[in-house]
């Protein structure tokens, strides 16, 4: 009997050498005449342990990590002789960081072979689609509405309401569009699903297609994600061959075709109307709303645009029922959120849990503080357009409304830690700079305001009259917040104003690092 090993092919694991580990095991197996079966999986999201290697045993899958090629021989000794090893982590499912999570969306990610539709089915996949096909579109929409699922891309709009709007819209041709333009720094959950459990996204989109009566879908993936593009493209081919796409999907009368489209390095194309323009082959210029995409979206037809995680949450909701999902969470934030711990963090990775943990629990308890071991000074939540939180606000619960009440946002669930060496004036400047770089140029507050913002921040350090410059920045932020057409210009005030409000000492005359020396 051959020894079964599981080694991730997720790009976060590849970036720290997973391919070399797989090659080293294959070579060691050959030289020992030991039959090895190496299964490439997604990542479980415990990135500080990557490359994480799992071995199938009678007691289940046992984990070792982080592995370097030099460990491979001693690992094979330990595995075959069943002796202890310093990298042994015990049964993978029992690793406390994983065990504490509530994995509804990420239940299979890191477990199954993402290329295998049979694996997907064996681990509970396609039940949601089968139920959707048997209850019909209207019932599917009501199920999604009552689950309380809100758009996981960042805006938090109720997914079921969006679907109902598209279903009620008139039109022979309707579209399902998946926004996989995951451009926010600190986020990688969409990438993990596409690389680790692509059939989940396909199933979620197929359910949406059934619900609203759409026959064609697109997955718009950013070009910075070549591995996700390759895995999704392959999965769509497999899904078509396996009857998950094409005619009569999931035993229904409905047909649905799906295609991958690749972005071209524009951050603003993560904004839904800009993404639609891009799909149509134009500059990614934001559209004014109304009309809503659900009424007039892609090529002017009724279109559902949802984030990867929104679609990926749906198969569970259909398979287990709306209540099973809505039982998790707090207030109007129902279900689970895949929180992504990133940047200068000790235990970085994906932590899926019900809404409601405090930011302090997430940062200190789950994240374990900084990787550098220095004190956490600021935490940016929700990507480049999210606010920087100081320790004083660590009691904020992870919930859409609670973060909004503290002038922040949870966005796509990214949490980026900075240690005490961070210069918050520099971070505020970067927020404006990034906005200037990525602005589509349609509206004046964003196009001009971002550049003026960079100039004004620079003047804070070079002129004596800091008070008037800071007043100007506040005024500029006010204009951008209320005058911009979309969230790019409209949300840049979050990082800028939070830096200014919570870290005013960094906006003094002397740069912080010089002052410290």
């Amino acid at each position: 009997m051959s020894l079964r090993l599981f080694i991730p092919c997720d790009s976060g694991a590849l970036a720290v050498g997973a391919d070399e580990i797989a090659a080293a095991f294959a070579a060691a197996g050959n030289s020992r005449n030991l039959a090895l079966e190496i299964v490439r999986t997604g990542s479980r999201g415990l990135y500080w342990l990557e490359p994480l290697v799992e071995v199938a045993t009678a007691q289940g899958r046992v984990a070792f990590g982080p592995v370097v090629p030099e460990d491979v021989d001693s690992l094979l000794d330990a595995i075959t002789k069943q002796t202890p090893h310093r990298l042994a982590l015990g049964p993978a499912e029992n690793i406390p960081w994983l065990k504490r999570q509530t994995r509804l969306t990420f239940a299979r990610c890191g477990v199954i072979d993402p290329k295998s539709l049979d694996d997907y089915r064996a681990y509970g996949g396609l039940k949601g689609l089968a139920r959707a096909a048997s209850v019909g579109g209207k019932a599917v929409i009501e199920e999604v509405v009552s689950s309380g699922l809100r758009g996981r891309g960042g805006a938090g709009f109720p997914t079921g309401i969006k679907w109902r709007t598209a279903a009620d819209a008139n039109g022979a041709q309707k579209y399902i569009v998946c926004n996989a333009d995951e451009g926010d720094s600190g986020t990688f959950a969409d990438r993990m699903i596409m690389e680790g459990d692509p059939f989940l996204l396909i199933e979620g989109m197929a359910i949406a297609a059934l619900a609203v009566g759409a026959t064609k879908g697109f997955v718009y993936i950013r070009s910075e994600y070549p591995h996700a593009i390759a895995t999704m493209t392959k999965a769509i081919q497999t899904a078509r061959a396996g009857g998950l796409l094409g005619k009569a999907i999931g035993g229904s009368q409905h047909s649905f075709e799906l295609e991958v489209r690749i972005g071209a390095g524009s951050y603003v194309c993560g904004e839904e109307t800009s993404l639609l323009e891009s799909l149509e082959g134009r500059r990614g210029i934001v559209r004014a709303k109304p009309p809503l995409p659900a009424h007039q979206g892609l090529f002017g037809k009724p279109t559902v645009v949802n984030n990867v995680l929104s679609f990926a949450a749906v198969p569970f909701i259909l398979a287990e029922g709306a209540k099973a999902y809505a039982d998790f969470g707090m207030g109007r934030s129902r279900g689970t959120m895949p929180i992504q711990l990133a940047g200068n963090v000790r235990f970085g990775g994906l932590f899926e849990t019900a809404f409601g943990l405090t930011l302090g629990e997430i940062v200190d308890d789950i994240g374990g503080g900084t990787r550098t071991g220095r004190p956490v000074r600021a935490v940016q939540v929700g990507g480049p357009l999210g606010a920087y939180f100081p320790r004083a606000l660590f009691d904020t619960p992870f919930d859409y409304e609670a973060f909004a009440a503290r002038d922040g946002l949870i966005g796509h669930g990214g949490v980026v830690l900075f240690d005490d060496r961070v210069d918050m004036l520099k971070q505020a400047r970067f927020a404006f700079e990034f906005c200037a770089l990525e602005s589509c140029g349609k509206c004046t507050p964003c196009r001009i305001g971002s550049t003026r913002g960079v100039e004004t921040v620079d003047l804070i350090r070079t002129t004596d009259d800091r008070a008037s410059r800071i007043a100007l920045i506040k005024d500029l932020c006010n204009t951008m917040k209320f005058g911009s057409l979309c969230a790019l210009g409209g949300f840049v005030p979050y990082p800028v104003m939070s830096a200014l409000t919570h870290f005013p000492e960094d906006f003094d005359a002397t740069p912080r690092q010089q002052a410290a020396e």
Partner: protein
Amino acid sequence: MRDTSTSPALETWDAARATELIAGLKGQDGPLLPILHAIQQAFGCIPEPAEPLIAAELNITRAEVHGVVTFYHDFRREPAGRHVLKVCRAEACQSMGSDALVSHLERSLGLSCGETTADGRITIEAVYCLGLCAVAPSAMFDGTVHGRLNEQRLDTLVAEAKP
């Protein structure tokens, strides 16, 4: 992740070849981005004569094509160097010192981000997020991903780039 093979050989501009690429994709819904990606993959950039050709094939104006080419960061006017090193400069990587890493790289190669060495060996570019934020700082080298970088590992990558 030590793949230092050079990118596939680029073709020299050939209008007939471009027309063939366009013809293969123009039937798609919203074909312009797929066409531009295909042209750039073949020729390493969007050569100027490609624009009127695409415009004619899709029955849109040259201005529209030019507008799209110049809107997206990915599309180049000139081919990049034989190797491309994209270093992430977004917040998660900033928190792990990517700014210092980029300065080191720029100093050691005598280039700024977006530039290519005089011998055409390597182009360095800034990228804003590779989704490797839990193994920051990160970079992409000719399509392979690298995390937990430091100056030494970055230097090794650059040194391994074949001339």
